[in-house]
C-alpha cells in the first residue's frame, strides 16, 4: 500500500498527479479523487500521438455512480497509454499511483511543472477545501 500522497509526485487542484522523468510526465488521479469516485468501471483515454493541454479535459472516468472528466496537468503529446485499464479499470481504485496510471505525456513546456503542487501543498489544499 503506497502513501496517500507520495512525495515524489506533483499534484493539481483537479486531483491529478504527475510523475516527472526528464521530458516525460506520467499522469493519473489521486487517492482523494478515487475515494470521491467510488468503484471505477470504465476509463476513457486519448490515443497515443494525440495532444493534451494543461487544465483541459483529456478523458473521462466512469464510476458506478457517475462520469467525471480528467484534466491534463501538463501540455504535450501522449506517448503512452495504460491500455490494461480498458479491461481492468479497477486498477485505478486499487493502485492509483502505480498500476492505475493513465497516460504518459511528452511535455511541450517544461515550465508548466512549476505550476504543480508538492504533496505537502496538495494535502494542505485538500484540508483547506474541506473546511
Amino acid at each position, binding site marked *: 500500500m503506497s502513501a496517500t500522497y507520495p512525495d515524489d509526485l506533483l499534484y493539481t487542484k483537479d486531483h491529478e498527479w504527475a510523475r516527472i522523468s526528464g521530458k516525460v510526465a506520467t499522469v493519473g488521479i489521486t487517492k482523494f479523487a478515487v475515494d470521491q469516485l*467510488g*468503484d471505477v*468501471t*470504465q476509463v*476513457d483515454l486519448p490515443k497515443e500521438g494525440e495532444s493534451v493541454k494543461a487544465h483541459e479535459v483529456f478523458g*473521462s472516468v*466512469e464510476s*458506478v*455512480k*457517475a*462520469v467525471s472528466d480528467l484534466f491534463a496537468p501538463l501540455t504535450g503529446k501522449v506517448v503512452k497509454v495504460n491500455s490494461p485499464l480498458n479491461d481492468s479499470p479497477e486498477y485505478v*481504485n486499487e493502485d492509483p499511483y502505480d498500476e492505475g496510471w493513465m497516460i504518459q505525456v511528452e511535455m511541450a513546456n517544461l515550465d508548466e511543472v512549476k505550476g504543480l503542487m508538492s504533496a505537502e501543498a496538495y494535502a494542505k489544499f485538500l484540508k483547506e477545501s474541506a473546511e
Partner: protein
Amino acid sequence: MTASQGEPRKTPLYEAHKALGARIIDFGGWWMPVSYPSGIIDEHKACRSAVGIFDVSHMGEVHFRGPRAAEAVQRLVTNAVGKLTDGHALYTVACHPTGGIVDDLIVYRVKADHFLIVVNAGNIAKDVAWFRQNVGTWCDIRDASDETALISFQGPKAQSALAALTRADLASLRAFDFVTDVDVAGVRSWVARTGYTGEDGFEVFCAAGDARRLWDHLVEAASPPGGKPVGLGARDTLRLEARLSLYGNDLDDNTSPLEAGLGWVVKPESGDFIGRDALMAQKAEGPRRKLVGFVMLGRGIARHGYPIHDLAGGAAVGQVTSGTTGLTVEKNIGMGYVPTRMAEPGGKLVVDCRGKMIEAEIVKGPFYQRPREGKK
C-alpha cells in the same frame, strides 16, 4: 421530511451510518449513505448473494383511516384497491387528471378502514398535499413519516437471517403480504415482503426511536452469511438491473404509466380514479412514446439525460432516464423514452455519450432475474 432547502434532514439511522464509515451525501434534502467503506460493487454483490440492509427511513408513510378510507385511496390510485384484503399490499401509481404520474406507491390494506401508503422521500410534501386536496374530507389522512423508520432487508438469505430475530411466520408471507405488530429483535414492527432490488426480501417498519436497535440487530443477523449494509449507490444499480423505475428519473409528473410500461397497474374498471379518462384515451390511441430498457453494444455508459437517436442520425428522438454498469449482468444497461415506433425489443438505438455515439439494443423485461426454486 420535506423541503430540500436549508440543511438536509437526518434519518433516525444517521449516526449508525456515520459509525459504519459511510460516505454521506445530500440526497433530495436528506443526509443519506451512498456507500459504506467496502464500496458499491461489494455491496451490490452482497445483496445478490446474501443480504443487503438498506436504511429507507427517508421514505414517507401516510395513513388513511375511516369508513371511507378505501374509497379515498381508490380515488387517488390506478390499481384495484378493492381487490386487496387485510395484510396485502399492491404497487400502483397516483396520477394527475392528465395521466401524468404524481408518484409511484405501495398501498397496504391494514384493515377495511385503515390503509397505509408508502411514498417516495422526495415527494412526501407533494403527495400529502395532493391527497388532502382531493380526498381530505373523505377520511383521516395522517403523515407518519417523521415517526416511522423503514429498513429494507433484501437478498437470497433474507428470510433465514430474519427468522433468527422473529417468531413471525415469514415463510407464509408471499410477495406483497405483510404482518403488523410483530416482534423483531424486541422491537414492535411491521414486516412486509416487498423490496426494490429484484431479490426476495422484507421491509421492516418500526418507530423512529427503535430504529437504531433494530438496525444493529439486523446488521448482526445478516453478517454470518455475508450480508451487509448497502447505500444508495448500490440501491440504484440493484433496482436498475431489476428494471424497477425510479421516480424523478424514469417517472415524473409528465410521464404516464402507459408510457412507462406500468399499464399493468392501471385498472380502469376499479373505480373513478383521478386520471382515468386521460389514461383510457391514451390507451385507445396508444402512447406516443415508451420507456424501454437497453443494453449498450459499444463501449459507453448511458447516464440520465443523455440524448437518444435512431440509427438514421439527425435530431434526438428521446432521452436516457437511468443508466449504469450492470454489476451482476456484466453489461452496461439503461432505460429511456423513445417514440413508440422504435420501442420494439431487438431494435437498435444510439446513445449520445458526451459526444460519442454508442449503439444500444432494446431488450424486453428485467436485465436481471433472480434464480427461482420452482414456482411459488
